[in-house]
Structure formats: C-alpha cells, structure tokens
C-alpha cells in the first residue's frame, strides 16, 4: 500500500444571476408607526444570509441602525415579485432592489424631518444611529423615529419606497450568436492537495487554498462561512455525493441520509481563503455573489489532484474508490505525475 500525494488547480469566472427575462427582483420598504422599517421581499433565505445582507443594505441606505430594520422574506403571496434564490443572484439583484426602495423611503423620511425642523431636505444628513441633523449643525436634529411618526401622524404621508432590479434583455446577435448573458462576474482560484491510497482507491483531501474575488464582502463572516461550507460541498460532490451511482441505471441509488454519502465533521480539510475585494460598479455597495461559485472550482481541482497523484483521469463524478482503482489497474499501476 502506498499513499500518493497530488495537487490540483482550478479557477473560475462566475456569472452573477442570469439574463433570461431581465432577471428581475423587487423590494418594498416602509416605516412602521414606531419608526422602525420593514423590508418586504419574496426572496428566500436558504441559510446563506440573504436576510442579514438585505438588512444591512437597507439600514445603510436608509441611514438608520441595523437594529431598526426588519426583513420579511419568502411570502410570494403578499410580497413583491422576485425571480428567486439561485444563480448566486440574491445579494446583487435583491440588494440593488432594496437600495432603490430604501432611497425612496429615505427621501420621504427626510422630507418629513425637513418640515419638522423647518429646513431644506437637501441640507439634512443621517448619522446611522437613528438621528437626522442639519449638515454642519448637529444640534438641530430629530430622530428617525420622530421623523417617521411626523410623516405618518401629522403630514399624512407613507414613509415607503419601491425598488426593482431589472437588466436590459440582451438579444442574440444573428450573425455571431453573441450576447451579454450576465452583468457581473466574480472570480476565484483554488488549489487542492490530496492523498490517494493505491490499494483502496480512497482519495482524501488534506488541504485547500483559495483566493476569491467577490466584489465587496458586505458581511465578511458570512462570506467566509459561505466559502468554507461551499468548498466542503464541492469536495463532497467530487468524492462522495450521487443519487445514481451507476447512472443511467438507477439501482443502488440512496434514498435517505443513511445511504446518501457526505463527508462528516471528521473529514474536514483545512482551508485557507484569501478574500479579494474589488467592488463591482453595478453591485449593491460593490457586492457580487459568492453563492454557488464556492463549490464549483473544487470539483475540477480534486479531479486534477487525483490525476497528479496516480495518473488516473476520472471524468465521471463522484470520484469513487472503485473508479480510481479501476483506473490504476488499467494503467498497470499508479503513475504519479510528478511532485509539487
């Protein structure tokens, strides 16, 4: 039995969202009687942090503390339309819609504050801590709650805003087939180190190193969680997960967590991540979407690492011990492609 070491590399240009039908998402923002804000979305938080991100974006745009914003998601009966949570589009698409809606609501709030303070709304600014004051004269101020209350109970105005993100539909050029399918790309490069056992065919990922360019990391800890978890999913797709192990034959397909293989807490590979921030011009506060791209490059990198280790090129996922062993046997033994 010999353990062969291998290293594989992959990189990715990842499109954020898509352009079918303009990829629209809408947001509605309004102030409640207590001066706190609700953001209504039909977008779904699957656990990736959409509620946290849209809450941050709304608070930043409105100029109120993040504690004063409540995000209400995933009621497609009563919420405004959204294409959905997929294609890594949440932060970028929904975030842009939230900015537009929050700007409109902020304008009403500032108008109300201007009337109360008897100044021009253009001279007002928010401190992000719940206060609106006259630029250069911080003592002339009113709280955001008081401004919202005045609008609703004195001026008869709704402190509300509507927002939508829609990109122009890109037609296909009949001559060249060229089109602009997306508006924004994120990028990443990833190196995976593996150990391959030539007796059992088992592949173990021992280290991952990556660099991700995600626009601005609007919430760095959420980005990190997404990238760490996504890389694990990529590793899992590369080496473990399948619903049809003998595709197209459906036999032996797993039906529950007993049979559906996934790496557990003991199979974690250390992962060093460098997050590079190059704010996207069309992104909400420069944010793109680290969504699905965090899993994608792991698969080719693992496949390349297995080839580097034992000279077996597996082109059907997952890279099971059986496939690796058959490959080694076909080659007449493990053939390391050189050390790194």
């Amino acid at each position, binding site marked *: 039995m010999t353990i062969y070491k291998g290293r594989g590399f992959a990189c990715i240009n990842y499109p954020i969202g898509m352009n079918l039908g303009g990829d629209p998402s809408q947001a509605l923002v309004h102030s409640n009687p207590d001066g706190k804000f609700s953001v209504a979305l039909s977008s779904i938080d699957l656990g990736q942090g959409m509620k946290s991100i849209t809450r941050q974006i709304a608070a930043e745009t409105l100029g109120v503390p993040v504690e004063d914003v409540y995000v209400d998601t995933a009621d497609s009966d009563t919420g405004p339309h959204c294409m959905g949570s997929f294609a890594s589009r949440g932060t970028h698409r929904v975030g842009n819609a939230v900015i537009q809606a929050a700007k409109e609501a902020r304008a009403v709030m500032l108008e109300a504050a201007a009337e109360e303070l008897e100044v021009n709304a253009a001279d007002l600014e928010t401190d992000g801590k719940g206060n609106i004051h006259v630029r250069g004269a911080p003592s002339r101020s009113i709280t955001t709650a008081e401004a919202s209350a005045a609008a609703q109970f004195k001026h008869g105005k709704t402190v509300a805003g509507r927002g939508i993100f829609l990109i122009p539909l890109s037609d296909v050029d009949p001559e060249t087939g060229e089109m602009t399918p997306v508006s924004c790309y994120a990028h990443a490069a990833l190196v995976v180190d593996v150990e391959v056992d030539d007796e059992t065919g088992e592949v173990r990922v021992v280290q991952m190193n990556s660099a991700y360019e995600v626009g601005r990391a609007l919430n760095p*800890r959420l980005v990190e969680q997404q990238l760490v*978890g996504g890389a694990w999913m990529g590793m899992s797709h590369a080496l473990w997960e399948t619903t049809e192990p003998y595709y197209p034959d459906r036999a032996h397909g797993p039906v529950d*967590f007993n049979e559906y293989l996934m790496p*557990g807490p*003991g199979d974690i590979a250390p992962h060093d991540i460098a997050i590079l921030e190059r704010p996207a011009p069309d992104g909400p506060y420069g944010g793109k979407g680290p969504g699905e791209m965090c899993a994608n490059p792991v698969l080719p990198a693992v496949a390349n690492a297995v080839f580097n280790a034992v000279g077996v090129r597996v082109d059907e996922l997952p890279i099971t011990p059986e496939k690796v062993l058959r490959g080694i046997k076909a080659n007449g033994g493990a053939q390391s492609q050189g050390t790194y």
Partner: protein
Amino acid sequence: MTKKPIQFKLNGADKAVFVDEGQNLLDVLRRGVGDLSPKYGCAQGTCGACTVLVDGEPYLSCLVLAQTMEGRQISTTAGLVVDGGVDPLQEAFMENFAAQCGFCTPGMLMAAKALLDRNPKPSREEVIEAISGNICRCTGYEPIINAILDAAGRGVGRRSA
C-alpha cells in the same frame, strides 16, 4: 389506538400529556407540549436535528417512543436559557459563528452539552466523535467544533448539572 397519559419533566418543569401508542418523543415535544426547539429533520434517526437529553444522555427524540418517557427528565435547547439570557454554550456558538441556516444548531447544542457534561475537557477528536451523528448541510463543522472547544475552555461542562 388508545391514548395514554404520561408525566415527565421538561427543562425542570412538570409536564403531563396524552400520547398515542406509537407516537415519538419529538412529536410529543413539538405538538404535545409546544417545545419547538428540537427540529424535525429526517424522522429516522440519521440527521441528529432532534437530539434532546433524557436524564442527561443524548437521545434522537424521533426514535424514542413517548410512552417510555414516564418520569424521565428531558432537556432541550429551549431550556438552555438561564435567567433570560443565553447559556455560555450558546454564547460560544454565537461568537464562533457556528450557525448558518441554524436548523442543525439545537441538535448540535444538545450533543455538545451531553459531551461537556460527561467530559468537560474534550480533545478535538472527542468533539468530532460527539457530533458525528449530527449532520450540518451548510457544512459549518469547523466553527461548530471550535465553538464546543471554546465552551469547554470557559468551563461550561463544570458548571452544568
């Protein structure tokens, strides 16, 4: 199907409830007595989201027949709240960002509590072993392991009964 009355303690409080013969503990906790902290994941004992403590031992509540719980002491994540504040174990989870979607978190917390109660200073390997029956599909195992080790460092296991 006949209903039978059972009594048990839930997080220290007396509970009495009628249960069906085949009803599992998870169902009784969630629908019978209204404790929604144990999560309904797979209902076949493979995901760990429904983990609760019975007399201090971790149990998969979806596989426990409720009728066998007569007179037992059951602890759930809802009971970790101490004097209106979160338990130091929950604090360690928060500070280590050990939750993403949060669905596995109650099960992880109870598995961790059971570990720290019997072994206040576990090794990394022992922590991994203790949560190996709990699936996290957001795959935040590393921060979860770190949170449990962090909690152990703060003496969480020693202060627990």
